[in-house]
């Protein structure tokens, strides 16, 4: 009986989620082994910190992460002083002050990451297409972090029969292959202080992991909670089963 239900659920889940994952026509991105996948997976703090560095030095010139606050960076293994120092490198607009004027001040941990453009039209004017906010990009794309990794490593020459217009680029893993973003990363572009190799693949993995964290900062707490919840429920189910057997013993 339980088996029937389980298999029914399995069928339903496969039937509905598998086709939803296949995005028409474009090759699926490579399957990276992520430290945070699986029921016990956690984020790799060093990779997150390297990913933040790439975001700050490369991505942030066009892409916002507006749902992230500096205070969230303690999740990456920074202490409060370090977070304060990182925040202080940014300038945010505050106000109005007593005279009704807006003013600029260094960011504090409670502030959110400032966006590179004041509004969407400005972003569009500067890039042709407004670069998407990255705070949820991993959850907003089929294949999640693999998609981000694929895009960052999937730049190729366009096939001969496929001329590209100005501001268009060819990417193996972009649905429809045409992408407005130029190849953002090249080997050795960002300096790593921890001796990690400075290749596009490594950069792409690190920043994809950072963006996975940005999408789902509570992933670790969720899984921990989930393990306890399942253990509790399993024990509870066992007790209820024995109790049920005992109560029903004399019926029939």
């Amino acid at each position, binding site marked *: 009986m339980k088996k029937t239900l389980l298999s029914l659920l399995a069928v*339903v*889940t496969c039937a509905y989620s598998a086709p939803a994952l296949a995005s028409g026509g474009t090759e699926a991105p490579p399957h990276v082994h992520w430290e945070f996948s699986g029921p016990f997976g956690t984020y790799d703090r060093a990779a997150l910190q390297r990913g933040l560095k790439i975001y700050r030095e490369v991505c942030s010139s066009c892409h916002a992460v507006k749902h992230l606050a500096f205070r969230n960076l303690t999740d990456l293994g920074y202490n409060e002083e370090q977070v304060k120092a990182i925040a202080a490198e940014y300038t945010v607009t505050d106000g109005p002050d007593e005279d009704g004027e807006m003013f600029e001040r260094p960011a504090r941990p409670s502030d959110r990451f400032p966006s590179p453009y004041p509004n969407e039209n400005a972003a569009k004017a500067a890039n042709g297409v407004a670069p*998407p906010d990255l705070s949820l990009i991993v959850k*907003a794309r089929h294949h999640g972090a693999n998609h981000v990794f694929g895009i960052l490593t999937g730049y190729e020459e366009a096939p001969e029969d496929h001329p590209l217009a100005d501001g268009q680029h060819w990417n193996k893993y972009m649905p429809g292959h045409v992408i407005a973003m130029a190849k953002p990363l090249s080997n050795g572009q960002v300096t790593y202080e921890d001796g990690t190799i400075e290749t596009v693949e490594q950069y792409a993995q690190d920043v994809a992991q950072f963006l996975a964290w940005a999408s789902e900062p509570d992933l670790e707490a969720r899984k921990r909670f989930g393990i306890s*919840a*399942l253990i509790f*429920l399993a024990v509870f189910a066992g007790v209820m089963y024995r109790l*049920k057997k005992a*109560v029903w013993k004399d019926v*029939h």
Partner: protein
Amino acid sequence: MGHGERTAFENPVIEWIDSRLPIFTMMQKEYGVFPTPKNFNYFWNFGAIAMFMLVTMIVTGIVLAMHYTANTHLAFDSVERIMRDVNGGWLLRYIHMNGASFFFIAVYIHIFRGMYYGSYKRPRELLWILGVAIFLLMMATAFIGYVLPWGQMSLWGATVITNLFSAIPLVGDSIVTLLWGGFSVDNPTLTRFFALHYLLPFVIFAVVFIHVWALHITGSNNPLGIDTKGPQDTVPFNPYYTIKDSFGLVVFLMLYALFIFFMPNALGHPDNYTPANPLVTPAHIVPEWYFLPFYAILRAITFSIDIPFTDITIITAKLGGVIAMFGSILLWFVLPWLDSHPIRSAKFRPVFRYFFLLLLADFIFLGYVGSQPADATMFGLPLSVFGLGATAYYFAFFIVILPWLSKHEKGRELPASIHEAVLAKNKKKAVEISE
């Protein structure tokens, strides 16, 4: 619920209340000693499980509403605030979000169990009709709930589904304007949907109350589909079914927890993590999984019905699809009269059983068809052909097969009573064990 005979309670406080408002007597009668067939299988757990899910949705929903902002500029961000900044917010939202799916899983099993064992038949027709009404209310509630996070799929799903009403002749456009509160899905749509999403669960709760009331008048059906004939056929609801339902519920919760904690977004669509944008249409608009079979029926009708040799169209393809989709559920209301066979349970109707299991497979296949893009193919043929075939079987089952079987299926011999059937089964089991 009447005020008939009442036995005094020993506890003076309970007695004081009960003699003025016999609520304890009622609970005792309806959930304590309530005679329930003793041969339920685990499919009979899903009514209680659905009830638990409804309460879970209402409780988490009320707390979410404390943090949510129904405004097109703020809704998406307010949901992210819940996920990131509200204490335990991610848990609440994932419980609610996956709760919709698990509520539907429970209710689908509950409905198909009712169909398999003939629970809709005399004298339980009204009980069944109330259940169908609950299902329709659930669909409405779930649909408008999915709009609230104001992601891309919220906006475009809402646009596609509300547009369906424009197919209704004469009043269609006015209905759509009324739903939208304007001329497109926009802020007035979001605010009215939020208000309705808060209201409808309480309407559901009220109809569930009447549904359960009706159940307690007729008593439960059972896997044999025969009436209870006396106390030897039943056990008191408490403790027998309180404990059995609790066990089933906990097992169900384990599956539910698996999704909440380890794959909370598996049943959703990634596009809903992109804020709604009226200028960008998603490549592939799909509703939530629990609507997919009906969505496939909607899309299966791609032809119009015309008067031959003229240009006059009686039913456009769009209206045809809408009629088919709503018709596919409205048929359930008259199911007790489409199937008038005197035997209830499929156990004793092998031909019905065969066609019903085919319907179940057909329904799941329709779900698959609904999940695919409009231009998908299967075995080199357009998938829409299979969708139309599956839709045809769905309707044929209810309109042709059931009435025909009612007249012609002979069925197997029914056991004399539940008690005897259970004894016979136990004896058989005992023989098998001793062998």
